[in-house]
C-alpha cells in the first residue's frame, strides 16, 4: 500500500511538471499545441539513450552513452527545446487557432511514426529500457529505499518548477505573454514581437515537457510507443483544463484530480469477469466526458486565472494624482511589494517610448482636472457647434513649416484588382493634430495599416521623424514611437483595465524570461511602483478608477475607447494615429476624448486622426488632409477646405455644414 502511494505521488509530481509546462503554451500563450506530448516522449527517449549502454543486437538505437542521469536529464530538456524550436519556427509564424493545432498534430504524428517505425532511432516498437534506479548506486540506496528517494527527487524538482512558474506568472513577461493570447494585433501595436515571444514561450514549455519526460523515463525505467498513446496526452490536457488554464494552482489541482484520482485510483477496481475492457474503457470515457463537460459548463476551470487586483485603485486616488499606496498589493501575488526603483525611473526617462513619471504628473495636470470635472456646456452644443478657435494655445507658436512627424510619399497598395491607396502623399506636422478625412473607401484605413506596418505597401516611402519605416514590422514601428489604434477598439479583454494600461509601455529590459527570474524584485514583477502610480493616475484621469480591476472585455464600447486612450497616454508615443475614435461614441464621451487629444499634444505626442465626425475634426485638428480614391486631394486648415470644390464633390457635398 505504502509503495503504491509512493508511486502514485511520484507520478503525480512528474505529471505536474508536464502540466505546468503545457500551461505556459496553452494557458498563457494561448496556443492549443498537440505536439506537447511528443516533447515529453522525446525527453524520455533521450534520457534513455544517453544513460543506457550500447545496444546489443538485435536491438538498435542511437547513442548509448552511459552518461550520468542528471547530465542525461539536461540532454532531454535541450533536445525537447530544440525540437520545439523547429516546430515553433514553422507553426507559429503565420498559423493560429485550428491551423496551428492541425500542424502540431501533424508534427507529433511524424515524431510518433519515426519513433515507432524507424528502428535505428529508438528501436521501433520495442522501445528502450534499462534505466534502473538512476543515482541509486552512487548514493548507496537499495531497491526498497530507492522509491522514497526518487519520490523526494521528483517532488524537489516539482517544487522548483512551481516556484519558477509562480514567478513567471506574476512577471512582466507573463503579463505580456497573456496579452498575446488576448489580442495579437493590439499587442503588436504596443511593441510586442509576437512571433518571438510566442516562440520563446513555446520552447520554454516544451523544455518542461522534456524534463517531465526525463523523469518519467526513470520512473518507468523504460519507454516505448505504447507509453505514448493519445490518451496520455488527452489526460494531460484535461488536467490543465479542469484545474484552470493559466492558474498554476489550478493546474496542480487538475493533475491531482485527473491523474492521481481518476487515472490512477481506478486501477484498484477489480476486473469485471468476462469483460476485461470495461474498466479501462470506462476510465477513458470519463476522461473524454470531463473534457467535453468542462468546456461546456466551466471553461475557465475550477480555479480560474487570477487577475491582479489593485486595492489602492478601489480605495481611490486623491485629486492630485497621489495614489494612496496600500501595503497590500492584492491577492495576485503576495510577494508583490513594489519599491521605488531609481534606476527604473531614470531608464524610463531615457527611453523615447515612456515619459518619466515626473513629466507624467506635471504635464497633463490641467487636462486631468478638466477631464475629471466635466466642463460641458451642453452636449448638443458640443456635437454640433464646434468651437471657433482651434484649441492649440498650449503649443508654442511654430511656423507653418514645422518639422514633420510623418511624411508619406507615393504610397501605393492594391488588393486584387482594387487599388486601395494610389500614389498617396502627405505630411503631418509635429506637435499638431492632423485630421484625415474622406469618403468610405477612400483608403484611409489602408493607409494607416501601411504606415503602422500591419500591411505592406506595394511601393512608396514613409518617413517617421526623418527615418524611413516602410517595410518594418508593426512592433518595430511601435517601438520607434508611432502607435496606432483600430477602428473597432482593440485591447486585451481577459486582462484588467489597469493591466491593459500598464502593458501600453513596452519594456525590453524586463519582458524577458531571464529577467522575470533574476534581478531586483521589481524587475520581476509586472510593474514598478512608479509605473503603477502612473497607470493609476491615468486610469483615474479617464474616469475608469472604479473599473480599474474589471476585465477589459466586460466594458461597454465607449469605455473600451477610453481604455484605448488611456493606453496611449501611458505609452506616450511621439505620434499616435487614431482610427475613427468617435465611432459610436456619445457627445459627452466625445468631449472627454477631445480633451484627451489636447492632453496628448501637451505630453509631446503628435496626433493623426481619421474621423467622419467633421465638427470634431474641426474642433481638434489644425491641419486636415482629404483623401479620395486612394489619393490625397486636398490639405490645409479645415476652413480652407470648405470652399475647395474637389473636396465638396468628393466628400462634403453641397449641403452647408
Amino acid at each position: 500500500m505504502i509503495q503504491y502511494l509512493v508511486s502514485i505521488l511520484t507520478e503525480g509530481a512528474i505529471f505536474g511538471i508536464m502540466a505546468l509546462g503545457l500551461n505556459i503554451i496553452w494557458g498563457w500563450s494561448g496556443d492549443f499545441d498537440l505536439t506537447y506530448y511528443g516533447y515529453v516522449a522525446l525527453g524520455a527517449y533521450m534520457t534513455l539513450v544517453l544513460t543506457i549502454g550500447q545496444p546489443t543486437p538485435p536491438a538498435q538505437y542511437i547513442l548509448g552513452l552511459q552518461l550520468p542521469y542528471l547530465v542525461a536529464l539536461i540532454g532531454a530538456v535541450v533536445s525537447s527545446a530544440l525540437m520545439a524550436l523547429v516546430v515553433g519556427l514553422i507553426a507559429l509564424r503565420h498559423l493560429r487557432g485550428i491551423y496551428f493545432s492541425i500542424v502540431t498534430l501533424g508534427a507529433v504524428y511524424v515524431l510518433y511514426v519515426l519513433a515507432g517505425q524507424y528502428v535505428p532511432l529508438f528501436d521501433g516498437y520495442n522501445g528502450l529500457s534499462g534505466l534502473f534506479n538512476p543515482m541509486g548506486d552512487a548514493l548507496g540506496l537499495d531497491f526498497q529505499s530507492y522509491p522514497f528517494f526518487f519520490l523526494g527527487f521528483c517532488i524537489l524538482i516539482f517544487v522548483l518548477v512551481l516556484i519558477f512558474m509562480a514567478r513567471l506568472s506574476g512577471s512582466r513577461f507573463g503579463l505580456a505573454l497573456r496579452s498575446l493570447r488576448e489580442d495579437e494585433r493590439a499587442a503588436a501595436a504596443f511593441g510586442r514581437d509576437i512571433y518571438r515571444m510566442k516562440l520563446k514561450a513555446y520552447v520554454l514549455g516544451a523544455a518542461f515537457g522534456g524534463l517531465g519526460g526525463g523523469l518519467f523515463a526513470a520512473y518507468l525505467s523504460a519507454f516505448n510507443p505504447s507509453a505514448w498513446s493519445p490518451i496520455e496526452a488527452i489526460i494531460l490536457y484535461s488536467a490543465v483544463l479542469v484545474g484552470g488554464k493559466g492558474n498554476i494552482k489550478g493546474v496542480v489541482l487538475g493533475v491531482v484530480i485527473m491523474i492521481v484520482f481518476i487515472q490512477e485510483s481506478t486501477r484498484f477496481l477489480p476486473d469485471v469477469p468476462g469483460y476485461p475492457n470495461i474498466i479501462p474503457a470506462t476510465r477513458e470515457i470519463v476522461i473524454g466526458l470531463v473534457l467535453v463537460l468542462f468546456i461546456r459548463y466551466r471553461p475557465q476551470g475550477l480555479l480560474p486565472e487570477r487577475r491582479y487586483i489593485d486595492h489602492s485603485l478601489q480605495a481611490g486616488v486623491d485629486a492630485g494624482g497621489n495614489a494612496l499606496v496600500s501595503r497590500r498589493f492584492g491577492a495576485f501575488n503576495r510577494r508583490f511589494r513594489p519599491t521605488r526603483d531609481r534606476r527604473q525611473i531614470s531608464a524610463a526617462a531615457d527611453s523615447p517610448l515612456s515619459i518619466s513619471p515626473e513629466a507624467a504628473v506635471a504635464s497633463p495636470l490641467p487636462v486631468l482636472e478638466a477631464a475629471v470635472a466635466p466642463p460641458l456646456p451642453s452636449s448638443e452644443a458640443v456635437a454640433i457647434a464646434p468651437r471657433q478657435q482651434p484649441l492649440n494655445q498650449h503649443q508654442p507658436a511654430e511656423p507653418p513649416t514645422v518639422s514633420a512627424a510623418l511624411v508619406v510619399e507615393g504610397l501605393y497598395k492594391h488588393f486584387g484588382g482594387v487599388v486601395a491607396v494610389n500614389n498617396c502623399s502627405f505630411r503631418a506636422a509635429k506637435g499638431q493634430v492632423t485630421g484625415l478625412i474622406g469618403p468610405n473607401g477612400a483608403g484611409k484605413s489602408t493607409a494607416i495599416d501601411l504606415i503602422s506596418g500591419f500591411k505592406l505597401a506595394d511601393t512608396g516611402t514613409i518617413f517617421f521623424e526623418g527615418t524611413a519605416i516602410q517595410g518594418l514590422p508593426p512592433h518595430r514601428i511601435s517601438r520607434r514611437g508611432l502607435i496606432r489604434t483600430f477602428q473597432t477598439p482593440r485591447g486585451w479583454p481577459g486582462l484588467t483595465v489597469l493591466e491593459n494600461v500598464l502593458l501600453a509601455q513596452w519594456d525590453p529590459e524586463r519582458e524577458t524570461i531571464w529577467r522575470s527570474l533574476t534581478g531586483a524584485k521589481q524587475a520581476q514583477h509586472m510593474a514598478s511602483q512608479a509605473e503603477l502610480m502612473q497607470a493609476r493616475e491615468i486610469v483615474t484621469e479617464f474616469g475608469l478608477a472604479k473599473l480599474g480591476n474589471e476585465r477589459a472585455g466586460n466594458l461597454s464600447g465607449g469605455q473600451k475607447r477610453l481604455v484605448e486612450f488611456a493606453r496611449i497616454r501611458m505609452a506616450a508615443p511621439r505620434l499616435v494615429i487614431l482610427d475613427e475614435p468617435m465611432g459610436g461614441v456619445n457627445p459627452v464621451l466625445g468631449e472627454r476624448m477631445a480633451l484627451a487629444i489636447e492632453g496628448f499634444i501637451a505630453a509631446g505626442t503628435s496626433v493623426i486622426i481619421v474621423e467622419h465626425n467633421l465638427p470634431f475634426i474641426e474642433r481638434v485638428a489644425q491641419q486636415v488632409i482629404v483623401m479620395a480614391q486612394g489619393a490625397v486631394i486636398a490639405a490645409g486648415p479645415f476652413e480652407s477646405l470648405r470652399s475647395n470644390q474637389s473636396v465638396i464633390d468628393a466628400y462634403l457635398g453641397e449641403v452647408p455644414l
Partner: protein
Amino acid sequence: MNEVLLTLGFGLVTAAILSLSAVAFTLEYAVTNVANLAHGEILTIGAYAAFVIHQSTGNVLIAALGASITGGIVALAMHTLLIERFVRSGIGAMATLIATLGLSFVLQNVLVIFFGAANVAYTIPQGAPQQVGPFLWTPTEIEIIISALCITAALYVIITFTRFGKALRAVFQNRDLARVTGINARLVGAATWFLAGLVAGYAGFILAESVGTFNPYFGFSFFLITLTAAVAGGLGKPFSTMAGAVIVGIALEFTGGYISASYELAFAFAILAIIILVRPRGLFTNARRTIFE
C-alpha cells in the same frame, strides 16, 4: 510504366474514399466553423454498422445503406446534442474543437466496450482484378470509384442548384447575416451534418471493405489523412476539398508504394505542413495569409 499505372490505380481508389471522408468533414466545418475531431468516429461507426448488418442479413447493399444511415444519425446527434449547443452558447470554435477531441475518445471507448479493441476482419470477396482502361481494379474497387463519383455528382447538384445548397453556402459565408435574412441556420446545420454523416458513414463502409479489417481506432487514423486532404483543398469548400483529396490520395499511394507504407502518415503531414506554410488557405486559392493580412 506499368507499375506507375498500378500505383496510380490504387491511388485513385484511396482518393475516392478519402474525397468522400474529406468532403463530409469540410461540410461539417462549413456550417458550424468547427473542425470536428470526432469525424473519424463517424466512419468507424459506419464500418461497424455495415459489419453487423452484413452479418445478420448477408446483403452488401443493405449493409452499405445501413452504414450510411447510421453515419447520418451519428453526425446529426453530434451536431444537435453537442456542436450546435456549444456554438449557440458562445463557446469559441477552438474550445469546441477540444470538446470534439474529448467526444472522439468517448466514442472510441464505447466501441471498445461493445465490440472489443481487437481487429475485426471484414472480408468481402473482391473478385478477380479486371483491366479498366489503363488500370487494374477489382470489381469492388470499381464499385467504390463509381459510387464515389455518383455521390460527388449528387453533392454537386445539391450544393449548387437547390435552395438548401444556397442556404448552406450563405451560412458558410456569414452565419449571422444568413440568420438575419431568414435562413434557419440551425436547421441548415442539422441537415448538412446529416448529409455529411450519410457520406462519412458510407466512406467508413468502403474503407473497411477495401482495407479488410478495422477496430475502434481505425477511423481516427484515417481522419488524420482526411484532415490533410481537407486543409490542402481548403477548409469549408467542398469541391476544392475533393480535389485536395485526390491529390493527397494519389501522393500517399506513391510514397507508400515507392518509399515505405509505414511512413504514409508522416508523409501526409509533411505534405500538409508544406501546403499550410505556402498556401494557408488551400491549394486552390491565391490569397497569401499572414498574421495580420
